[in-house]
Structures are given as structure tokens and as C-alpha cells.
């Protein structure tokens, strides 16, 4: 069943501009993410990738332009309100509640659901996707390894039943073997048909994985890449350094 062509994108950034004091972190950024797509956002440190995600979530104020979810503007709304309208963020550094148990962390993610029905099924689905989350449910989340915490952080976002999943550098600081686990999980999320905006430092891997990847530098999109460009490292290096 395909959507009518006129359906608005799940996420639409329209000339989004975010400033920190005198510094423009994101400059007139226009990006669309359609239902079921996986869109990557790569670029050097300070390119404005994380700021873009925080602006979508309402965690930093938007100075100009607009953020629309399924056609409706969410500019100026509180983070919890945006979370409850179907956007879930896996934050950079995972931001697990170390003193709560693994299960409590997962259940906190239910706060973003629009209704209570289906909550237990969502938790079960995450247990299926990440067995380690069920296995260590009673442990303090701070005792988990980095990779396990990342699985918990992704699970915590998924139980909210989001229309759009934002991931902020999910592979940061993880051992290569664990990065594979994270990308395997992303592949599962793709199969489940969840729309994803993925911010990553691992450029090549992201370009190969996503349907479309934007390369950002200095708050602007410099290049749009598709999986076929994954081996074109020269263009990427050039964009990173320019």
C-alpha cells in the first residue's frame, strides 16, 4: 500500500537556522525525510548535526525557518510535547539513567507514547530485538557496557512507538565489533519500516547504509550522497576539508 504522492514528509526542515550567541550553528538548512526512509547526516565536528537534532526536538530554540512533522509546525514547542507527537531521540552519549534499572530506563521511554495501549507489546518487541535488555532488566543501567547501554538507549526510543527516530552518533566510542551490533539493529529498524534520521561520524558506513546522506559543514549541506557514492571518498574528504 503506497502513500498518496501528496502526503507531507514525516520531517521537513525549512530553511532552519539556529544561532548560539553570535555563532550560526545551522544555516538555512532544508531537508526532507519521507515515510520509511533512512536519511544520514554526516560531517566534521561542529558542522551543526547534533544542533539540528536538538532543534527538531525543541531542546534548542529555532532562530529562523521551520520544523514540520507530517506537515505541522512544531517550532517553539516543548521537548516533551514533540516527543509525544511521535519523535524519539537516541541522544549522543546515550544519556542512560545510570542509577535506575535497565527495565526502568526502558519503561521511561513509554512516557513518549501517545496512548497506553500497545505498551507491553512494544516492550516485548524491544526484548526481541535486544535480548540483552531483557536479560539484564533488573541490573543498574550504569553497570552495562557501552554497547549494551546503546542497545538500551535505542530500545528506550523504540518503545515510544515513534513515527520518526533520530539517532545522534549511536556508534560513538564503541568498539568496532559493537558498532556492527548497532548497525545490525538499525537494519532491523529499517525492516520494521521506521523512518530514521541518522547523525554519524562514520561517513562511509552511513552513506552505504542510508537511502540518502547529507554531508554538512559549517551549518550547511555541502553534498547529497546516495549509497553508490560510498566508495567516492575523494568527494567526501574534499567536502570535509573545504
Amino acid at each position, binding site marked *: 500500500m503506497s502513500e498518496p504522492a501528496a502526503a507531507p514528509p514525516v520531517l521537513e526542515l525549512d530553511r532552519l537556522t539556529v544561532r548560539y550567541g553570535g555563532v550560526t550553528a545551522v544555516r538555512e538548512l532544508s531537508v526532507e525525510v519521507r515515510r520509511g526512509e533512512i536519511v544520514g547526516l554526516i560531517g566534521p565536528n561542529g558542522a551543526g548535526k547534533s544542533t539540528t537534532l536538538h532543534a527538531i526536538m525543541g531542546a534548542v530554540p529555532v532562530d529562523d525557518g521551520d520544523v514540520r512533522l507530517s506537515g505541522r509546525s512544531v517550532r517553539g514547542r516543548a521537548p*516533551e510535547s514533540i516527543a509525544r507527537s511521535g519523535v524519539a531521540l537516541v541522544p549522543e552519549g546515550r544519556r542512560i539513567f545510570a542509577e535506575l534499572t535497565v527495565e526502568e530506563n526502558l519503561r521511561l521511554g513509554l512516557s513518549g507514547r501517545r496512548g497506553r495501549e500497545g505498551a507491553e507489546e512494544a516492550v516485548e518487541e524491544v526484548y526481541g530485538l535486544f535480548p540483552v535488555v531483557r536479560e539484564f532488566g533488573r541490573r543498574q543501567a550504569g553497570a552495562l557496557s557501552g554497547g549494551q547501554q546503546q542497545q538500551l538507549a535505542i530500545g528506550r526510543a523504540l518503545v515510544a512507538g515513534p513515527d520518526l527516530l533520530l539517532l545522534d552518533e549511536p556508534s560513538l566510542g564503541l568498539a568496532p565489533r559493537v558498532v556492527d551490533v548497532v548497525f545490525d539493529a538499525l537494519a532491523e529498524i529499517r525492516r520494521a519500516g521506521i523512518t530514521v534520521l541518522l547523525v554519524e561520524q562514520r561517513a562511509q558506513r552511513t552513506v552505504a547504509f542510508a537511502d540518502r546522506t547529507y554531508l554538512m559543514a559549517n551549518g550547511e549541506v555541502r553534498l547529497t550522497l546516495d549509497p553508490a557514492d560510498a566508495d567516492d571518498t575523494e568527494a567526501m574528504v574534499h567536502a570535509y576539508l573545504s
Partner: protein
Amino acid sequence: MSGALVASVDAQTIVDAVGLGAVYALMAVGIGLVFGVLRLVNFAYGQIVMAGAYALAFTSQADWPTWAGIGMCFLVCVVLSALMDRLVFRPLRTQSPAVMLVTTFAVAFLLQNVALLIDVRDDTIGEPAASVASLNRAVTVWGVEIRKVSIVAVVVAVVALGLLALLLTRTRIGLQMRAAATDFGTARLLGVRANTVIGVAVLLSALLAGAVAVILTVQNPLVSPDFALKDTIIVLVGVVVGGIDRLWTAMLGGFAIGFVTGVINGALPTDKTVFLPSVVFLLVILVLVIRPEGLFARGRTSLVERL
């Protein structure tokens, strides 16, 4: 010297000290709940208790039944706390903790002066609350004279804090409150509503203030504008000594300073009780020098602004 001190601390003193510790533990948790979600030390907490005590005094003078007076006391505490949150704390949430602390000082003095205006209309300061005073009588348990209110204080503290612990550990809102107390920003990104969590913390804190108002009014039935002021200062010190960033360390700090105050008060000869604050605060200084992170805290954690 120490032998004489120990000898003069009898069972009755210990029981009264435990009663005082229980009341201070309730106040400490009331202050700690709001601090947890707002990073706000509410200096005006004592004035909420004071307002509740006035409600008891005025309803007692109007010959309301005791239960209705106690109900009114809780209602006044809840309404006043809600107003304080809506009119004062909410507009200042994004300000620094220092700004919020100074503001609560202003609110405390404002409420104290409002109380004074209401109180002096009959040309005397202080309103008696006779209806609850009967709880101050003593009963004899195993040969020890115990004031009923000490028993009530301990029972109320154990039940109230037990219910609070159940709420925090077994319910959805409790989980959200615990998460918000450690990292409010991330909690909100997960969909935890800031206003709901803060509202529930303020409500629970107000209910504890109501219970404290009833118990303190039994112990001291003459309600005046500085009612609970001294207690609030001692409890705030106790909360810092125990460790303010966790509810249970704040509670233990409140209990400890109440208990120690009660024991020293009983141990000092009657003509030397003026030295009570000096002795208590000397102990506080010693604790802060030896364990600056808090008597019951496990490690030093930085207190950062959350909202």
C-alpha cells in the same frame, strides 16, 4: 562531665528526640522533593507550614470539628504551594539556583508579614489552636512517660515516607520523578512532562507540610508569624549535612539533626538551653569540615541546573 550528660538523657528525652527527628525528616523530604526536580531550595517551606498552622488555629477558634480543621490545614498548604509554584517558581525556572533561593527568601518574608497583618487584628500576636492540643498529653508506656504527639509524629513519618517510597518506586509518575531528579533534560526528551512532574512534587511536598503543621501545632499550640521558622532553618542545615541531592540522605540528615537537637536539649540543664543552637551548629561545622559532600552521601556529585 560526659557521665553526667549521659545520665541526664533519660528514655523520655530519647523518645521526644525521635519524635522531633521524625518531624524534621518529613520537612527534609518536603524540601528535598522540590529540590530534586527544580534544583530549588525553598526557604519559604516553613511559611507553608505556618499557614497550615494558622488554618488549624482559626478553625479551632471557630469551633470546627478537629478533622475539618486538619482538612483545612492540608488544603491551605496545598493551595499556597500551588500558587507559589505557578506565580513564583514557574516564571523563574530557567534562572540560576541563586536567583531562585533569594526569591524564596522574599516569599518567606512576604508570607510572614501577611500572617502578622492577619494575626494582630485582635491586638495580640499569636493564635491558640486548642482543638489539637489534647494530643500533647502523656501516656505511660513501660514506665516511660511519652507524649502522644511523639508517637503520632513517628507513626505519621513512617507511614507518609513509606507511601512516598512506594509511589516513587512502583508508579509511572514516581519513575518519571526519579528520572527528572537526575537528568531533567533527557527525561523531557523522552516525553516526561515537566509541569506534571514538578506539580506532583509540589503537591507531595505540600501534603508533608500539612502533616508537619499538625504535629508542630500540637507541640506548640500558640501559632505566631514566626511559627516553624527556626525549625525550617535547622532542617535546611540538616538537609545539607545529610546530602541534599538525594531524598533519603536529605531525610536522614533531617532526622539526625532533629534527634541530636532533641537529645542535647534534654541533656542541657534548664538554665543552659540557650546554648542549644551553639552546640548543634558546632556539630554541623564539624560534620561539614570532615564530610563536606554530606554525612550520608556516597560521593561528591555536582549540582547542576536542570531546566
